[in-house]
């Protein structure tokens, strides 16, 4: 059974319709990537799945449960966490405190969970007492991902994790996404870097104008001439 099933989702901001009858599925333990031109509604799709936008039509199911219209703090408890593209850390809090905030809904010690995140991102362990606002873009992205992993989510939503990072760091972040996935967490991500994300993804959706255009296995789309022409730069 699919972990996340979006069917016929239509939504937008105010009067403006951004997503039109979007359909997508994420199977447990898989990496699913959404690519598409600017303004296609990729980030909007993530926000709608996470409850930051109310669906106008259609359904969003997490496991068997309908989550369309639930608020983010309820969705977090069900096992889905989200890393926004920008402003995704608490700048005046230390790395450690950022992680603790990711586990706010849990009572009791979060020490073990923090250590697990530090195992995944050894660089954060060295800087656990540093304020997140004083860190580089790549380190912040790690803090943000670490925060979202504190609840042991079944599904992690990543909105452009590589945006604005130097090429070396982009590789590092993609490597970390692979590691996270290898630990059993399904990942749904939006990426500008279409080629890299298709290489990583088990399945990918191409969004155009708020609707599905093409979808298929990541490697198949990499070889698809139309996708290549439109989004991979020839």
């Amino acid at each position: 059974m699919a972990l996340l099933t979006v069917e016929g989702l239509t939504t937008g901001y105010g009067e403006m319709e951004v997503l039109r009858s979007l359909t997508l599925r994420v199977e447990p333990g898989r990496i699913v990537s959404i690519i598409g031109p600017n303004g296609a509604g990729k980030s909007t799709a993530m926000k709608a799945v996470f409850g930051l936008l109310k669906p106008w039509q259609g359904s969003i199911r997490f496991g068997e449960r309908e989550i369309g219209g639930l608020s983010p703090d309820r969705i977090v408890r069900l096992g889905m966490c989200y890393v926004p593209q920008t402003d995704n850390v608490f700048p005046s809090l230390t790395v450690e405190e950022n992680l603790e905030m990711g586990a706010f809904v849990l009572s009791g010690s979060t020490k073990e969970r923090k250590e697990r995140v530090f195992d995944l991102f050894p660089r954060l362990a060295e800087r656990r007492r540093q304020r997140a606002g004083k860190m580089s873009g790549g380190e912040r992205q790690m803090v943000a991902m670490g925060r979202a992993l504190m609840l042991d989510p079944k599904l992690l939503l990543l909105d452009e994790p590589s945006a604005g990072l130097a090429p070396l760091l982009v590789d590092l972040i993609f490597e970390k996404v692979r590691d996270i996935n290898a630990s059993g967490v399904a990942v749904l991500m939006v990426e500008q870097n279409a080629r890299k994300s298709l290489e990583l993804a088990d399945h990918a959706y191409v969004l155009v104008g708020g609707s599905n255009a093409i979808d298929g296995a990541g490697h198949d789309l990499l070889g698809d001439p139309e996708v290549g022409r439109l989004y991979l730069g020839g």
Partner: protein
Amino acid sequence: MARVLARRAGGPRPSARLRRAIGSRTALVALLALVLVGLWWLAGAQGVTGQRLLSLAVRGVMLGGILALGAIGLTLIFGVLRIPNFAHGDLMTWGAYLALFGLTLLPAGQPLAPFSFGAELLLLLVLVMPLVGLTGYLLDRLVFRRLRARRAPSVILAMAALGGAFLLRSVIYLGWGADFRNFYTGRPRPAVELFAGIRVRPDQLFILGLALLLIFLLYLLLERSKMGKAMRATADNADLARISGIDTEGVIRWTWLIGGGLAGAGGVMFALDTQLRPEMGWWLMLPLFSSVILGTIGNAYGALVGALIIGVVWQTSTAFLNPAYGPGVAFAVLILVLLFRPQGIFGRPGGA
């Protein structure tokens, strides 16, 4: 020549560099120090003794402690809720009058020498703090929560807070009238010599000690407790707090309880040091906002530093100015800060 080359190489223009230097933290601190030295010089020119100036500085630190109790709540409420809470000064007044009401109910005990107040005032302080906190939270439930749900802009929130201020003050006028009051009438409050000829009233030392204790407890709460960390997180980035699953309504409730509680304590202390009158807190709003902006809006420790600076400058100015001009002196400091470094001592350029 070298300057021209530097500019060609992409360096900042000299004027921009000058502006940045003027807007630096060091420059602001130097400017404030200069203001203080200027005040001392003015006072000295009028024959005020050094001992008296030192006494005033000590009293200024004490006044700064009172201001800090108000300013910290003001800055927390702004940080977490983005409400410029113009009712904060009146929450302080409300605390003072609640304590006065309590004193009329309780039998007056012996003063705790060398202080002018008895144990009953300490008991009332413990009762008044949560009551004022609850008043703040009630204001939030009745007014601000509805406005939040409609995503009201901050001007509307400021106007609503102003309405809350008028409401509170009217209740005080109705209940106690416009007369000046004292917690204890007819008790002498002599100043004693601290050291080196510095004279202060024992009450003032108590006030300073209490302010420091409360601020230390707040520090523990903000840095060690989960709710305190969540408050700082929400002040940093409210959207991310919600996304992370932080109970933002709980954070809001605690922010009002703590901010209001500190304001209540500050009001009682201010009344103990001076007198009660319905507009006492309202007149503190200028110094409070000056402290908050000086110490960078949203930064609780900054508010403490700002309040201490404002307190010392205010008290020092009374060496040669009528004390009634105190809020005006605080306002002058505010204007200096806004001109040279609007983000305050601890702010980053361009951001609050």
